[in-house]
């Protein structure tokens, strides 16, 4: 029973969605949009599980003092810091920050102390007492400080200057530099893999070289716009043929896999026990 119901659900909802595609009527659209809303909401609820997993792994490292455990504090700091910023905002235009930063510090320390209370084996009472002190401090600040306040039901927190600074000066530089590392990796991958070991590797190498030469001004001066024409032809003829075949294959693969799942032929994705 426990094991059968999920597969029945998969079949019912899957089959419905297949037929829904062919029914343009309003009522079928309504169900469709409603179900897609479900997916979004379930996904957001599941994020709690994700954050829990992230915390567990970090705490486990700290608790067992595994290699590099010290960096796990940075994860905690970033995670809780950003969450606190995202749910608080300054009243007025934010010209006065009041005791905002001390509050954030107290709240973060309180969280760290609570965590240590949970994971430590000795000294539990010391950590608990410290946690109590910091909680008290942050509660007091949030009661008596009028320059900022919590916002849960509206999105003022996203405009919080600290939230934006974290985004602009931590996330953006790191993420775009990570992306930019590709400039180097594409070079090293080309060096390592573009060797004429056999016919297939040679075809790969020659096609890539022709296209790369097209963007090299020195080569263009010698060959004229022949390189540009050749590389455009490569993209619009052999590449188009390759893509078309792959797309058709992928389409059939997706439909076959989805069918196997809806019909209950493939059950490997669902747990047992």
């Amino acid at each position, binding site marked *: 029973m426990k094991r059968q119901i999920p597969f029945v659900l998969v079949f019912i909802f899957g089959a419905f969605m*297949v037929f829904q*595609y*062919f*029914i*343009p*009527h*309003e009522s079928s*659209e309504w169900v469709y949009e409603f179900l897609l809303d479900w*997916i979004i909401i*379930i*996904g957001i609820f*599941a*994020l*709690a*599980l*994700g*954050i829990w*997993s*992230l915390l*567990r*792994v970090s705490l*486990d490292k700290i608790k067992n003092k595994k290699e*590099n455990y010290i960096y796990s504090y940075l994860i905690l700091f970033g995670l809780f810091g950003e969450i606190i910023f995202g749910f608080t905002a300054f009243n007025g235009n934010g010209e006065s920050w009041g005791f905002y930063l001390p509050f954030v510090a107290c709240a973060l320390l309180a969280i760290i102390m609570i965590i240590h209370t949970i994971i430590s084996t000795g000294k539990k009472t010391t950590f608990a007492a410290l946690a109590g002190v910091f909680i008290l401090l942050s509660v007091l600040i949030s009661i008596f400080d009028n320059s900022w306040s919590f916002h849960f039901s*509206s999105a003022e927190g996203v405009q919080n200057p600290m939230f934006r600074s974290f985004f602009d000066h931590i996330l953006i530089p*790191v*993420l*775009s530099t*990570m*992306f930019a590392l*590709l400039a180097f*990796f594409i070079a090293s*991958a080309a060096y*390592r*893999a*573009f060797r004429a070991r056999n016919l297939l590797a040679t075809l*790969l190498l020659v096609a890539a070289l022709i296209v790369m030469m097209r963007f090299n001004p020195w080569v263009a001066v010698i060959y004229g716009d022949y390189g540009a024409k050749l590389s455009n032809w490569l993209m619009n003829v052999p590449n188009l043929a390759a*893509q078309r075949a*792959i*797309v*058709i*294959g*992928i389409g*059939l*693969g*997706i*439909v*076959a*896999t*989805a*069918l*196997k799942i809806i*019909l209950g*032929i*493939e059950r*490997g*994705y*669902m*747990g*047992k*026990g």
Partner: protein
Amino acid sequence: MKLKTVIFICLLLLATISVSAQEGAEIVPETDTTEQMPPPAPISLLTAVDTDNDNGHSVTLTWELSPDDRQGAKSVMSYEIFRWVPLMRDTVEQVRSELANTGQELEVGDPTGEIKEKRNRLRDEYEGLLSRYSDAYGQYPNNGVWKSVGVSPSGSTTFADKGSKEREAFDYLPDYCDFYYQVFAVTSDAGIRTGSEIFGPVHSYGQWFNTGRIPIFVAVLFFSFLTIYFVQRAKKGDDLYVRPLAGIEAVDDAIGRATEMGKPILYVLGLGTASDVATIASFTILGRVAKKVAEYQTALIVPTYDPIVMTVAQEVVKSAYIDAGRPDDFKEDTVHFVTQSQFAYVAAVNGTMLRELPATNIYMGKFFAESLLLAETGAVAGSIQIAGTDEIAQIPFFIVACDYTLIGEELYAASAYLGREPVLLGSLKAQDWAKAALVILGIAGLVAANLGWTDFTDLFHVIN
């Protein structure tokens, strides 16, 4: 493409409605203009029908061009379409905008519950008005005015008067109401115009089957039949041959290698969510890999990008350990969540690779720009790498940087290959037959196209 065109023309129409609503554009009286220029000839044969294959709330008009379209001094520059609307429209619009305002007020805050109450009252009033609204359309030509619903450029002979299906939207167009239309040919001087004969009444309503999608329907039915047929044959014990795939055979060796070296295996499910079929296919592969890993007692690391993917992957790995008879060896943190940001995830996985030095990295699922970042770092760490993705743009990078790559649909075949269950191999057979059918249809269609038999090729044309 056609659907897009229709949608965007309709959006344009909405914009014009809003503009004309502000200006309160009514039909310009056709006097005094004759002394400057004679009015253009009107359009002819105006017809309006419900738009086909949609959810209703839309009427399609067609007409024959005015003889003055784009020629001569009284050249027609555009056609303006008018629909007759009851006078009640202003009341309806007023209540609707008040209702919309309360929605905005609610977002600011509603400490006393007053706004909420007002909103409910307005909503009831609005619903009542709407039900009388459709009756008012029936009173044509009394108690109503002509209202511009859109402009179509010269040379066009069709226009879709499409409204919203949302009852509280400003352009809500009710179904099953009597609509009357008139189209004006307009010259460069907006005052000089000629109206057509009035057409009506016409209803809009939703359909229960989209005939434009029949080719897809047939294809799905045909393919489902093939799959079920071959799976049944496989169940009966037919021997099904599949040719070997290098990437799949490598998986077994790679797990063995990891065991020998005493190093872990890193399995990356990619950036897909659990709603991507590529990721679901990857789950089943993960299941097979995890089972072997459990048998060999090697370590497995599965960092995930999406919390639902993490949950499903945990289930999959856990049951693989149970299948292998080692439920106690399963640790929940084997599958862990990292973060939902693409490059932050890559940063973390890259760090893991250089710290844990896995013997084997397996990438299966949806990958985007990070494919090469992962694969090159994996190569630095000296791992054997096996990749499979259906993101066409990323396949070249995997081919270049990995030892084995499953191209496109081979990813979907992989779970059948790894499991070697006859039932799953049956579906591969179905895929092959479908491909053969496509090749034959493609050749036949091309021959038909060269001979100009568009009737045949149109059979395969999907109209949205």
